[in-house]
């Protein structure tokens, strides 16, 4: 079991020794059981920290903000930022290292093992509780969750309410960390591509009608992009003006910027945005599932990323986020990459 006391102790140590600039972990929202990212700046604030099955957020994403802040400030404090990471999150750190977006000493990593469980899916939890309101959601012993409802304790088998991505997770243990909490327990992830198999089997037009329905709902709030640990581009095809505009950017450069995607939320533009995002995440997405979780109209974005993950593995033997030294998927090739589709 991951010990919360130990987590607090480690964070306190890191903060009081001045080793980290600040620490990002999780805290409860209000007096409820749900959690949100917490920025801990003082050692005495570590008591805000929690570690529960509702800690689904991938905190690696906040390293983008830190990087931008450093670029803005004249004399930035360049001490590492401390993060709590799960197995999946740790893989996204590896991708950022691999892409040289960050350096290893930009981040101080406290890894936590998901052991036999992972994080929950709130919809599944609510369905399971059938109208009852949870007061607390905790890790149980050996692959269960403990939910307190009406001051009563309910034990739920993990697979019943685990987030889909946890059911298909190949890394329930951090792959890169400075400190690791919890045990490394081997777990059979089962079919890693279970969620997409039904869609792969669909007839072409059936698939189209499914995706058409999904994409036509998109509001283009860009929450999927905003929450993504890999969406750090200074310039995105979806923006009207890129952040990359500076005082030195010439009028001609601005005028000639190609507008790939129009701002209207019609199907064609929504598809364009999501296709670009999917292809840009190929070989980079670690399936932390955040994009799908935050979507207010529940577009199943994991299904896109998972498909790319599967193709990268099957076509090119490529696994994302286990080795910070491996070259990015599309910045390398093998002589015998498949080419039976080429005429």
């Amino acid at each position, binding site marked *: 079991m991951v010990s919360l006391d130990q987590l607090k102790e480690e964070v306190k140590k890191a903060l009081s020794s001045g080793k980290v600039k600040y620490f990002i972990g999780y805290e409860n929202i209000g007096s409820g059981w749900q959690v949100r990212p917490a920025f801990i700046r003082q050692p005495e604030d570590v008591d805000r920290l929690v570690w529960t099955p509702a800690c689904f957020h991938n905190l690696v994403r906040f390293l983008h903000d830190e990087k931008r802040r450093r670029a803005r400030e004249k004399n930035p404090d360049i001490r590492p930022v401390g993060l709590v990471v799960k197995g999946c999150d740790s893989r996204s750190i590896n991708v950022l290292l691999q892409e040289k977006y960050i350096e290893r000493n930009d981040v101080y990593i406290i890894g936590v093992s998901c052991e036999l469980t992972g994080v929950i899916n709130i919809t599944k939890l609510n369905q399971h509780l059938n109208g009852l309101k949870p007061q607390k959601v905790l890790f149980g012993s050996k692959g269960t969750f403990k939910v307190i409802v009406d001051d009563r304790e309910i034990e739920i088998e993990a697979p019943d309410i685990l987030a889909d991505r946890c059911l298909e997770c190949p890394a329930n243990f951090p792959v890169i960390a400075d400190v690791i909490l919890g045990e490394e327990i081997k777990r059979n992830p089962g079919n890693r591509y279970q969620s997409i198999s039904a*869609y*792969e089997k669909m007839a*072409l*037009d*059936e*698939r*189209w*009608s*499914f*995706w*058409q329905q999904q994409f036509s709902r998109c509001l283009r709030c860009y929450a999927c992009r905003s929450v993504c640990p890999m969406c750090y581009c200074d310039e995105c*095809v979806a923006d009207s003006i890129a952040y990359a505009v500076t005082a030195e950017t010439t009028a001609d450069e601005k005028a000639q910027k190609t507008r*790939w995607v*129009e701002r209207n939320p*019609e*199907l*064609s*533009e929504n*598809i*364009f945005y999501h*296709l*670009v995002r*999917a*292809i840009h995440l*190929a070989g980079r997405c670690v399936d932390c599932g955040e994009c799908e979780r935050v979507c207010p109209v529940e577009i199943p974005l994991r299904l*896109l990323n998972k*498909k*790319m993950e599967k*193709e*990268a593995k099957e*076509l*090119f033997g490529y696994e994302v986020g286990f080795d910070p030294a491996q070259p990015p*998927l*599309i*910045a*390398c*090739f093998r*002589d015998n*990459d*498949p*080419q039976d*589709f*080429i*005429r």
Partner: protein
Amino acid sequence: MAAEFEPRIVAFLCKWCSSAGADLAGVSRMEYPPNVIPIQVMCSGSVSPLYVFSALSHGADGVLVSGCHPGDCHYIKGNYYARRRLALVKKLLEYIGLEPQRFQMSWVSATEGVKFSQLIYDLVKELKPLGPQTKFRRNY
């Protein structure tokens, strides 16, 4: 009777091989259907997935990316990168529900005028029965 549907194919052809192959087909007076809108690029490796999506969103009925045969790339490795990247694009497009015939890749060398003209014959033949590509096309 309505005129037979003529698909429009946007073809991204690398300058060194495929574009030269298309030229050879032209100067050798080989006939091939006029359905192709050729766009010369420096290398198949420079074809961003954005180009492919953009062609489809602007109403292309088919998209072709053609480069040098493996080992022949003017820039040594460009076509290998293209092969990997566009394989993913192809898988993604089909997964969303686009007919596989609509996105194609080929290797055509500067001497393969015959291959190029035959390829275009074949693509047009395969695309005709599918009708216009409306899935990704802008309504406006």
